[in-house]
């Protein structure tokens, strides 16, 4: 399969959106573009597994390599492994749902969809690139769309949130840039990930570079204490913006932490693993308790995201093959789950015009579909078996338990304990919103429309596909996880 299509299609969609002026046409172009992209992502999955079952064991498949800047040895090198395929599928699902829930945006529709598609383009490019320079290029592409999406179409303290997000992410990029350049000059003037992985970089140097790269990507994935943009950003963004932020953007960071920082600098990863564990354990527990205090549905989901993303960072810090597989599964699962959660919150807000749980109640009576989805996604968030959250968190815990010393055991237990807190806030929020007596002014509200139903079903399908049959995702991710582990414990 030619990976260029994955980038070409969003580009064409964006161009189509730009040249058309009718709002309905713009929506249709975006929807069909993203649906075809979803089809492509699935096709990529099948092509990928077909190659693997046929016995093709090269690390990266469908590779293409073009020289971009000869004098600087920068290559446009793309290719996918299991992690990339999983992330591309996740992105395509979230994009379809994001386009669908934004159907009613009337203010500057063209610009809105253009920025959405541009954001998606950045994510696709990031996940397929194998050259740090190109990767960085795609990572940075997504910063400005996020800024504008929040600042123009957001609500509440949107300008503040947009600024904070853009500056923090730019700060993260600056760290990545420094790490990347040091790596470039010490790995023999190359940005190519595979070439860097083959060059010998001294342990001391790795210890210097690793923090730059890990913290840099950590800002994107809300590593404690660099997570402060998350609550503001998520809660001020428009629905699709929150979905993209939590579902895609935070995954860029996690992917980078693993693919760039941990994979390229195994010695550095070993050196700092304990710190990562401590930070992510704090994030998990702090996030959970902070969520308990929130009364705004979007803040609840934003803080719980900090907590959930903590699981995937914990998995990375544990440095066992199972834990890393779990971390990756958690990224995919959390992406689908939070996107769906934000979508549902958006649907509720469109009808009740409030996000405060205390001002709602009994919504199950008037909007059964939306409330049911809210229940399902809540249960997924607290880790009910049969849904994706359980599979991912379970894998992380099993992997973490493989480390037999007290430190790792305590961290694992603490992380496990947070699930109880999760149950408290999720059940309370969902209960307050969907059950109990209904307010009289909410009696006339209607249920989800076709676009909202479709969006929810797409994401739910992903959640169930992982929850019921986790083996396909597991098969995708264990191979690459093993390659990373082989570098850490040769």
């Amino acid at each position, binding site marked *: 399969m030619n990976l260029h299509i994955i980038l070409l299609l969003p580009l064409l969609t964006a161009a189509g959106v730009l040249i058309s002026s009718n709002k309905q046409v713009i929506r249709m172009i975006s929807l069909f573009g993203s649906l075809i992209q979803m089809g492509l992502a699935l096709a990529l999955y099948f092509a990928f597994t077909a190659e693997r079952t046929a016995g093709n064991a090269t690390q990266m498949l469908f590779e293409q390599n073009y020289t*971009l*800047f*000869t*004098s*600087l040895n*920068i290559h446009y090198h793309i290719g996918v492994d299991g992690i990339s395929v999983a992330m591309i599928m996740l992105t395509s699902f979230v994009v379809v749902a994001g386009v669908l829930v934004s159907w009613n945006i009337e203010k500057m529709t063209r610009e809105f969809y253009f920025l959405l598609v541009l954001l998606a383009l950045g994510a696709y490019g990031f996940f397929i690139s194998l050259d740090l*320079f190109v990767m*960085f*290029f*795609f990572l*940075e*592409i997504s*910063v*400005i769309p996020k*800024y*504008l999406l929040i*600042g*123009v179409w957001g609500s509440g303290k*949107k*300008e503040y949130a*947009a*600024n904070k997000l*853009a*500056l923090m992410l*730019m*700060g993260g990029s*600056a*760290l990545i*840039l*420094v790490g990347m*350049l*040091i790596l*470039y*000059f010490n790995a023999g003037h190359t940005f190519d990930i595979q070439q860097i992985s083959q060059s010998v970089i001294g342990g001391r140097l790795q210890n210097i570079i690793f923090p730059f790269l890990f913290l840099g990507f950590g800002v994107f994935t809300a590593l404690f204490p660099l997570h402060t943009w998350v609550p503001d950003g998520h809660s001020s963004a428009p629905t699709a913006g929150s979905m993209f932020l939590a579902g895609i953007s935070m995954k860029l960071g996690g992917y980078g932490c693993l693919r760039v920082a941990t994979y390229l600098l195994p010695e550095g990863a070993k050196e700092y693993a304990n710190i990562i564990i401590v930070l992510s354990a704090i994030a998990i527990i702090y996030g959970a308790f902070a969520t308990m205090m929130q009364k705004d549905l979007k803040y609840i989901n934003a803080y719980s995201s900090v907590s959930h993303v903590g699981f995937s960072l914990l998995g990375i810090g544990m440095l066992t093959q199972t834990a890393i597989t779990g971390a990756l599964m958690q990224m995919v699962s959390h992406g689908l789950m939070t996107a769906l959660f934000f979508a549902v919150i958006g649907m509720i807000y469109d009808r009740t015009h409030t996000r405060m749980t205390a001002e709602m109640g009994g919504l199950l009576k008037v909007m059964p579909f939306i409330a049911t989805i809210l229940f399902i996604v809540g249960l997924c968030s607290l880790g009910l078996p049969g849904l994706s959250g359980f599979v991912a968190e379970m894998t992380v815990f099993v992997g973490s338990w493989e480390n037999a010393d007290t430190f790792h055991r305590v961290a694992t237990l603490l992380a496990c304990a947070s699930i109880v807190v999760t149950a408290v806030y999720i059940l309370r929020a969902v209960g307050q919103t969907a059950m109990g007596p209904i307010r009289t002014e909410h009696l006339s509200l209607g249920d989800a429309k076709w676009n909202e139903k479709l969006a929810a079903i797409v994401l739910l399908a992903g959640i169930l596909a992982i929850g019921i049959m986790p083996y396909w995702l597991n098969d995708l991710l264990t191979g690459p996880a093993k390659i990373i582990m082989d570098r850490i414990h040769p």
Partner: protein
Amino acid sequence: MIPDFIYLMRSELVVTLIIFFLLFVKIGKGMRNSSLLPVIQFLLLVNFLSHFACHCSGNLFGNMFLVTPLITMQKAILSLAVYLISLLCTEWLKKTEHLAEFFLLMLSALLGMFFLLSSGNLLIFYLSLELATIPVAAMANFDLHKRISSEAAMKMILSSAFSSGILLFGISLVYGSTGTLSFSALPALLNGSPLQIMGFVFLFTAFAFKLSIVPFHLWTADVYEGAPVAVTSFLSVVSKGAIAFVFMTFLYKVFQPLHTTWYNLIFILSIITMVIGNLFALRQNNIKRFLAFSSIAQVGFILVGISSNDPGGMTAVIFFILVYVFSNLAAFGVADVIAVSTGKETIEDYKGLYATNPFLGWILALSLFSLAGIPPTAGFFGKLFLLTAGASTGNYWLIIIAGLNMVISLYYYLKLVRAMFMDKNENPIPKIYVNRTVKWAMVLCALAIILLGMFSWLYDHIHSLVA
């Protein structure tokens, strides 16, 4: 048989011919602005294209005047910038009373810069530097009815006279200790004696004045604010570009033996320049002052690239300046259109611009993103290459500080973006009719901003010229 010097000096000759043409127009009956301007624009385009006539190199007048493909390329960049200015500032130029004189001065300055780039001797270097500076001071005074414009011209002429004095002092010290003025003979005679270092530091200071490196930047903001936009853009793009090119050849070729001295100077000054430029830009409310301080910060980044002392650094700086031409001129072009038709110049006035003038809003946003170094604009590549070049010395502190400064600069560029796209304004800038020429020039700039980085052969081409 056509003599050599016609080939080698073809760009200088073209500029001189245009100057003569303008003089004759002035002596004769004169032409109306609306008919003269297209002619000038066409001639400037010819001037730009003349650089591609032949790929020749050589020297004239006993090594006083050098031509290499690289120098021709640098001249082409400057000519392109002048051509773009003549297009982007159409509105203002049409209204000015003394159009012929304006271009007379501008082209004299350009001629000075051409000689500056080609100079192979400290004497011709000094002469051409003066030729490149004094007309610009006269241009700064072109808004004749505005006091602030005269003030700008006065500040400019005083500070450049001062820096010329320092330059001459430096030249005499260098000459006194080496006994030569020729660039090719100097490196062998430089041994790092205190007298030479002192002479070099004086020379360096003169450059720092012209490039507005902190702490020699104080004239910049006032001059930029007071002068008409066309002049400000000429100053910030063409003058800066020419001086930066020469500065680099100066350090890399002539003063290579004093490398450690100038490396330390550049290291410290680049940090100060970036930080001060950025911090002051944060507080500006007038768009021209804002762009002035942002251009000071950009010079700081250019110094990071210069510090590398290898062909990679030179390539990165030239590429960055090429990108900077488009980004900065587009920003100034928008400022000019708005200033000419409404007289508004503060960031407050730009609030809600996007709602009334989406085209101008996009162009300005794009150029600001390019200045901030955000992909997919060419500014991203330009900045990244500068930092890569800076990192090649192994001094990572410089890169860390530069990285932090990119974040600070993003803050104030976003401030303007936010004003245009997000803030509400009860009294927004009304819908402005943009002249077709200006529009095309802006679209050209926008295309260049988007595509220049992706067309990687350009960078490699510059690299092959440098190496």
